[in-house]
């Protein structure tokens, strides 16, 4: 609960810090409503729509409303998928408003003790530190390999967890060993004729839990004629922090990353996670109030490109033969890849270039699957509603493979497949892993 005193502080900060021009820029036409997953799933509640949320933020700034529990709830339930942005004719940057509002609320609110411990551990002690990330994921590996996992499942210990977490435990990938995670390359030459020098943003979760996907990404880049630099000093992108009202830490991480990449003399900085990419591409906004960083952030942001964009740009799909066993595949957009990085066509182009597969677009592929960072853990109920809708559409395509472009989406798809009992005939896979499979077939 937020106390009255805290509410007053929040209101004051709203008046001082929220971007009034951006709030006014929303002219309330309502064009965003039909694209908002929470508006639709809440049974068309305006308080669960972008227009409603902006009006609520503005009302706090204007002193028409207090930042009470219901106001907070409305913002908490937002997925932050930003589907409202590409359809907004006025060009309101809803994502920035949401981030600022969440940051103000979090900075002025005393969380309950358990929430404080979790937040501190996750946001301060774990994600910003690559070594600790490896350690934590290593523990997971120990859990998976030591027999404890089998034991835990037998005893029914997992029954104590909320349903989505219990299922989540089953679908986590087999993680690499500590040794594998420590031994990462810092440079890889182009395999085909060199066309670009690129840097690879390896990400914290991607470079540990999804290490194989990172390996595949770098391999594809090499095959596409890119020489790849992987600076060791890079850190977590800070998206998780930014989206959860921990803007300060996000800024610190951004500065470390900008420093790590700026002297590398590369054409692009490649990411393979839509969630990270979208945050990286926004670094100039994140650091807009810091004059000594603004330009450096802009240079950095301009180089960010998703792997699929670069592969299409160098005609990888025309040069390298890709083939897979006969199957239907479909693609689930990563919201941030589509809505923020504006990458929607490239993954589809690549998938349709694979011989042997039939690509079938699913209805509302651009609607959020409910993963949304840590949303599926903290807002499990709404997240599962989103997932049920998504799985219904996925099943309609009769696809054997659902392809995604972001680790969160991937886990959510796998969770959906597991929940629906479809794991024998359907799988979820990251696009680069599928492309790598297709290249290997050849």
């Amino acid at each position, binding site marked *: 609960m937020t106390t009255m005193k805290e509410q007053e502080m929040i209101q004051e900060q709203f008046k001082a810090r929220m971007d009034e021009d951006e709030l006014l820029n929303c002219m309330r036409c309502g064009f965003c409503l039909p694209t908002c997953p929470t508006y639709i799933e809440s049974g068309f509640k*305006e308080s669960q729509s972008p227009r409603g949320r902006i009006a609520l933020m503005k009302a706090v700034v204007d002193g*028409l409303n207090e930042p009470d529990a219901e106001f907070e709830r409305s913002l908490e339930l937002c997925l932050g998928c930003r589907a409202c942005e590409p359809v907004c004719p006025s060009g309101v940057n809803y994502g920035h408003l949401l981030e600022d509002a969440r940051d103000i609320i979090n900075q002025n609110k005393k969380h309950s003790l358990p929430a404080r411990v979790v937040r501190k551990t996750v946001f301060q002690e774990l994600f910003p530190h690559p070594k600790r990330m490896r350690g934590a994921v290593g523990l997971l590996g120990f859990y998976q390999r030591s027999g404890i996992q089998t034991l835990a499942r037998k005893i029914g210990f997992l029954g104590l967890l909320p349903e989505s977490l219990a299922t989540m435990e089953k679908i986590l990938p087999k993680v690499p060993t500590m040794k594998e995670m420590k031994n990462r390359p810092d440079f890889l030459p182009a395999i085909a004729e060199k066309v670009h020098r690129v840097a690879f943003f390896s990400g914290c979760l991607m470079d540990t839990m999804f290490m194989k996907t990172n390996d595949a990404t770098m391999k594809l880049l090499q095959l596409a004629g890119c020489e790849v630099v992987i600076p060791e000093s890079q850190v977590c992108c800070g998206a998780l922090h930014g989206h959860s009202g921990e803007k300060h830490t996000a800024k610190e991480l951004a500065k470390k990353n900008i420093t790590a990449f700026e002297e590398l003399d590369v054409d692009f900085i490649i990411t393979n996670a839509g969630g990270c990419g979208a945050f990286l591409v926004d670094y100039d906004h994140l650091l807009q109030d810091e004059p000594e960083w603004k330009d450096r952030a802009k240079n950095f942001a301009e180089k960010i490109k998703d792997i699929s964009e670069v592969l299409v740009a160098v005609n990888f799909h025309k040069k390298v033969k890709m083939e897979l066993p006969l199957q239907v595949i479909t693609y689930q957009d990563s919201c941030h890849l589509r809505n923020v990085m504006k990458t929607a066509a490239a993954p589809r182009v690549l998938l349709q270039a694979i011989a042997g597969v039939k690509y079938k677009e699913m209805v509302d592929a651009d609607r959020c699957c409910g993963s949304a960072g840590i949303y599926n853990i903290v807002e499990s109920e709404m997240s599962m509603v989103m997932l049920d809708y998504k799985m219904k559409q996925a099943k309609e395509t009769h696809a054997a493979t659902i392809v995604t472009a972001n680790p969160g989406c991937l886990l959510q798809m796998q969770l959906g497949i597991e929940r629906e009992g479809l794991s024998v005939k359907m799988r979820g896979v990251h696009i680069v892993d599928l492309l790598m499979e297709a290249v290997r077939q050849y």
Partner: protein
Amino acid sequence: MLANEVKEKLIAIVTKANFEDSKTERLVYSYDATPNFQSMPDAVVSPRNKAEVAEILKICNQHQVPIVPRGSGTNLCAGTCPTEGGIVLLFKQMNRILEIDEENLTVTVQPGVITLDMIHAVEARGLFYPPDPSSMKISTIGGNINENSGGLRGLKYGVTRDYVIALEVVMPNGDVIRTGGKLAKDVAGYDLTRLFVGSEGTLGVITEATLKLIPMPETKKTMLALYQDLNAAAKSVSAIIANKIIPATLEFLDQPTLKVVEEFAQIGLPTDVQAVLLIEQDGASEVVERDLTSMAEICKQEQAVSIQIAASEVEAEALRTARRAALSAIARLKPTTILEDATVPRSEIAKMVQAINEIAEKYQLEICTFGHAGDGNLHPTCATDARNHEEMERVEQAFAEIFEKAIDLGGTITGEHGVGAMKAPYLEWKLKAEGIAAMKAIKLAFDPHNIMNPGKVFAKDSKKRVVITR
């Protein structure tokens, strides 16, 4: 504040889940798409059927609580802003398509159905519902009927009014009446159907509507005519009509509008010309071809610098979507967009375009003009900032002059957006005192306690009509 007694009665009707009166839930229904209007309702109620609507109206009538029926709140005349408090009535649970009758070519719907969802449903059966307001992706049929919405296809096919053939309406006293029917002809008594269309929720609550459908046109083609002279574009519009061609769509966009729309849509709209006309024709392919060729010829004679024909339906749809985004896209220029929809006989469109530009210059305002030029309905839109009071005053003066000019040319103060609270002070200019008195008499007969959307259509005070010296 609602009296406790009223609140309890309402909850008893709709259950707790469909009654909201927290500050947050009220705030998000304190506005619609009209700038500078905001007012808190006392409660938000979502009935599930007409019986509940009737019960709610009875109680509100008894206790004289204002009722504001609201679809998705996309209207542009402050028609659903609860300026006098009371209850906002939502139709999110009355949103079903009840029947598509392929023998009578009708569709019967509940008021909360989203316009585009219904259009898709009837098109799947090869049928066509022409009214296509720009907000159709989210607007509701109930809202369209109450505002008598137009759209891009109004020129050839008319507006919502021309498709509503039967209504079920709950009267303020709780009576349920049915008007019209699935009938091509019906002269039994007053035409109440037409009266309710465009009544802005001031006479009763529509709980069901039967709409006329027509067969889908066989083909459709789209083209852009580019101009370096605003007047030439406007003259082309009148010339096309005078040549006895009625295109499905004949839209006008000036350069400032083109620029912001292109910034949003990024589809390669020409931004280096003064104006474009977006022209569409549908029907049998030979007719479409012939009309398109003739219209291209007319445009060239009127100094169009270039004619571009959309290569595919995808390209054509992108053009239409871009045009529909025009109003909101203008908000990119400045925080507040004040838009009007003064409408003139289509022969006068060139004079109106010129007058708008002169008025913009006189008051030193940034006015973008776009609109359904083919039916004389323009949308001069002023990009301004509500916080700049001095400029806002000039905006008001400029629009008063635009209304004045429109009426002088035989036009009206609003073609399709409605009067609402926004244009109520100007209504008398169009209707004269006697016209207002006649309408007020109707309102009073239907709604003696004035509970239905009070403060809309009729203003407490009329604006003084400024006389322009010419």
